[in-house]
């Protein structure tokens, strides 16, 4: 048995373990599920160590002698006190440090999610499609404005926003399903071509 075939058989075994859930919950699926979590966590830990801890903590402090970085390193360790009843409050310091970034989120959020979208929505209405987009955007926004009752002509206009959203959700759903189907096709191709194909 070649090493490639062995590797593919291992992959096929775990693929079938996960697929077995389609029949019903079973020990193979349960074991595979926990292994997926364990391996993913181990992968994340090893990668964080190699790509973050070594270059930004170990090398900067020990090799480049930037001793001031001992402060954020100790602050990072305070995260671990989250589980302590007495000293748990100390974990608020690294959390507060990371929450500082919220300040950047205000101007950036206004720019990316509001100003850019508004600028794109306020183009000259030169075609029927642009008119539909403009009406749709206004109607969707008003649909979430609850300070005025959705009644009468206003209610009917707001209802248009609901129809727009239904089409949008349908499109998003269709795209998501197709993405999952393409993954499924990939797994079946793996089983048929890379495993059964080599076994033949």
């Amino acid at each position, binding site marked *: 048995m070649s090493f490639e075939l062995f590797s593919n058989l291992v992959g096929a075994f775990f693929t079938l373990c996960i697929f077995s859930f389609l029949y019903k919950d079973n020990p193979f699926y349960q074991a595979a599920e926990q292994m997926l979590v364990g391996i993913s966590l181990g992968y994340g830990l090893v990668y964080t160590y190699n790509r973050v801890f070594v270059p930004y903590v170990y090398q900067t402090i020990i090799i480049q002698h930037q001793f001031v970085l001992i402060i954020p390193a100790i602050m990072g360790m305070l995260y671990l006190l989250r589980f302590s009843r007495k000293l748990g409050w100390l974990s608020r310091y690294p959390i507060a440090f990371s929450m500082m970034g919220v300040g950047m989120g205000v101007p950036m959020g206004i720019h990316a999610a*509001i100003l850019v979208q508004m600028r794109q929505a306020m183009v000259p209405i030169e075609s029927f499609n642009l008119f539909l987009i403009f009406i749709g955007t206004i109607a969707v926004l008003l649909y979430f404005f609850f300070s005025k009752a959705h009644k009468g002509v206003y209610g009917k206009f707001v209802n248009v926003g609901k129809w727009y959203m*239904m089409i949008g959700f349908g499109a998003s759903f269709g795209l998501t399903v197709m993405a999952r189907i393409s993954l499924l096709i990939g797994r079946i191709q793996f089983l048929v071509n890379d495993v059964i194909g080599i076994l033949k």
Partner: protein
Amino acid sequence: MKKTIPLLIVIVGGLIWVVWAFSPHYVLQEVFYNQFYLPWAYASASFAMLLGVLSLTMMHSNKIKMRAPKWQYSYFFFASFVITCLAGFIGGIQKGGLFMWMFENVQMPMSATMFSLLAFYMASAAYKAFRARSPEATVLLIAAIVVMLAQVPLGVKLSKHLPTISQWILDVPNLASKRGIMLGVGLGSVATSLKILLGIERSYLGGD
């Protein structure tokens, strides 16, 4: 000390970030951002990963200790976690080693299969949700079917106009609804950020 200083860090640091976004001044762009924030954030971030490891490890060890339902499977978690860590820390993360072999032949197939499983569950959920019980559900169903069919050869065989209609759905009504939602989300997130910055929202600090 327990709550006031962390709150002050968020408020003062957050306000500096607000000024940073508007000012190209050297002190803000170079001293604050490049020399202070980035190295400090990287140095402290690596320990956040340990928090996740500790949390999962405690959860599974408690499960085993308490003999909770399906506790036996927690051993699979520990075994795979320890083996992956040993493979990575001792053998290294380069291609050709055990670490990458496990990633390519165990982790990747399992996670891809897990996501592909969702295709089945989405199909059954869609059947329940889309039984066209209302005009809105019908519209959703039609939009989904058109977008899905337009991406497969069968759809193009059924009608050569299907890809054009699908593209129109994506470019016009879908764009309008997404833009409206995006504007709402943007306003909401800015409002929440301001509440955090002004110290009104403090739930991230936890209790006590």
